[in-house]
């Protein structure tokens, strides 16, 4: 769904000074993953687990003061799956249930609930993480979690140059539109693909120039450490508190 990403990665972060904004990024990453994993492994019939998890996410959104409008708008990425979830009860097999005179698959209804609940809660958790942590913070957090430096540097470069490439793309589009380019069929796509080819060459050559510039500034193949902000403590309690209610309910119900 690349088309909907907007251009600026930095816009994802909503500045704020709540307790969630202040947490160390690596702790937030661990907390988010622990929370999402505990939701993903919950059996579909345990409705109360999903209720608790959803309450947790809503609490986080409130505490982080993320506007509900922003949250809902960013949830739009899961809409295609919601469409699919709606279809499952109609095509699903097994025992049938009558709902408003329509025969629906019972397993299909559970599956639809399962997909919808997990997708919504999982996406919301990611949205809280991205909205309360600047991109540099996230990169630093993943570095502290022992993700290879090279990989993080590649991601950092990608994010740094993404806006530039998207702007270049926009200028190409403007130039085409200015020349009355208004394709409606697939076989008219050639100018667009040629622009994409040109964009690749320009990106690659930019990479070569950037590499030269880096060498000129003493690059030895290792990126300097990202600026580590001093944090008084590693607030590890957060990584336990966030997924705790879900895990607690899950364990209680399974016992």
């Amino acid at each position, binding site marked *: 769904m690349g088309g909907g990403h907007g251009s600026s990665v930095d816009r994802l972060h909503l500045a704020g000074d709540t307790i969630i904004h202040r947490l160390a990024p690596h702790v937030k990453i661990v907390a988010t993953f622990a929370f999402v994993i505990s939701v993903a492994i919950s059996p579909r019939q345990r409705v109360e687990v999903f209720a608790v998890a959803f309450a947790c996410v809503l609490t986080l959104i409130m505490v982080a003061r993320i506007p509900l409008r922003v949250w809902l708008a960013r949830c739009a990425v899961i809409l295609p*799956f919601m469409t699919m979830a709606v279809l499952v009860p109609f095509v699903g097999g097994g025992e049938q249930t009558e709902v408003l005179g329509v025969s629906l698959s019972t397993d299909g209804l559970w599956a639809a609930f399962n997909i919808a609940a997990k997708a919504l809660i999982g996406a919301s958790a990611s949205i809280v993480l991205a909205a309360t942590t600047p991109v540099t913070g996230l990169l630093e957090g993943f570095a502290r979690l022992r993700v290879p430096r090279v990989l993080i*540097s*590649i991601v950092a470069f990608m994010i740094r140059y993404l806006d530039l490439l998207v702007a270049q793309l926009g200028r190409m589009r403007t130039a085409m539109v200015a020349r009355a380019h208004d394709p409606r069929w697939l076989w008219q796509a050639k100018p667009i693909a040629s622009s994409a080819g040109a964009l690749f060459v320009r990106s690659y050559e930019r*990479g070569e120039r950037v590499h030269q510039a880096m060498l000129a500034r003493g690059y030895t193949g290792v990126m300097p450490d990202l600026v580590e902000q001093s944090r008084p403590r590693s607030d590890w309690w957060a990584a336990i508190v966030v997924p705790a209610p879900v895990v607690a309910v899950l364990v209680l119900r399974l016992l």
Partner: protein
Amino acid sequence: MFDTPAIVAMHAPDGFLEPGVAVVTAVIAVVVTAIGLRRATDELGDRQVPLAGLAAAFIFAAQMFNFPVAAGTTGHLLGGALAAILLGPWVGSLIVTVVVVVQAVLFADGGLTALGYNTINMSIVTAFGGWAAFRLLRRVMPANSAGVVGATALAAGISVVLSSAAFSIEWLFGASAPVAFDTVFGAMVGVHALIGIGEGLISALVIAAVLAARPDLVAGAADLDLADLSRPARVGTRTFVIGAFLSTIVVAAVVSQFAVDNPDGLEKVAEDEGFISSARDHALDSSIFADYATSGVDNATVSLAVAGVAGVLITLAVGYGLLGASRLGRRTQGA
């Protein structure tokens, strides 16, 4: 029609497949990415960070390139096979993986626990499957730029179908809904055969443009003489689209003969291993396409073929309708 079905296969959310599949695919994805990182270091040296970073930004931006499909609707590139043909399969799959991970972590596009299978379907299978198909096709194509462009078109199209097949196989092991493998496989491969036409055409035209400007940047053409490559390849776009559409219909008619025999190969395996004890025939049994054999048509072969073709056309229509919904979603997303 290109946007929505692509998402059905890809960018799957949390809990879309069972946890076991998520864990196994995550382990495979981590291992392949680790090897890819090492290979990228070998191939690019200290140029690795800026070049891979900018190539990843290109793939990210290329997925924003909307190209026309039919009657004003648009689709976008997925880019796995293209990245592999430009940069080799290891670097190619590495950078598409970077894009997939960033989309999940920053944009909530694809679940965090779904990263394993999303990475496999969207970057590893498309890059390596596309590369393998490309190398095979290069052997039967002429050793010039037209051969490279033609092989790219077919390989990129095939890579999308392979990706959908990979998803179907994962579904076989970890379905989260009572929809049979046959149904998923038929729908996914059918839809993606159509998506593959666009993917193949755009990838080929991109490669043609790069070959004309910097033929040395196409890893898939590294074995050819640069002077020959810079001569532009003539691509008959319209012929390609119509030809590809017709061959998709033919493939649907032919493949359906093999794919839908009950129980087919994979399902037989699953049945023997007891994987699909819960998979049942679906509720559309009474519909005219039940089990893909058209009732009222006596000849079994013709009947299956008609069902296969109708399947392609119906998926096309449904995808076209779903596009409207996804567009609505996109408009609100910018806020």
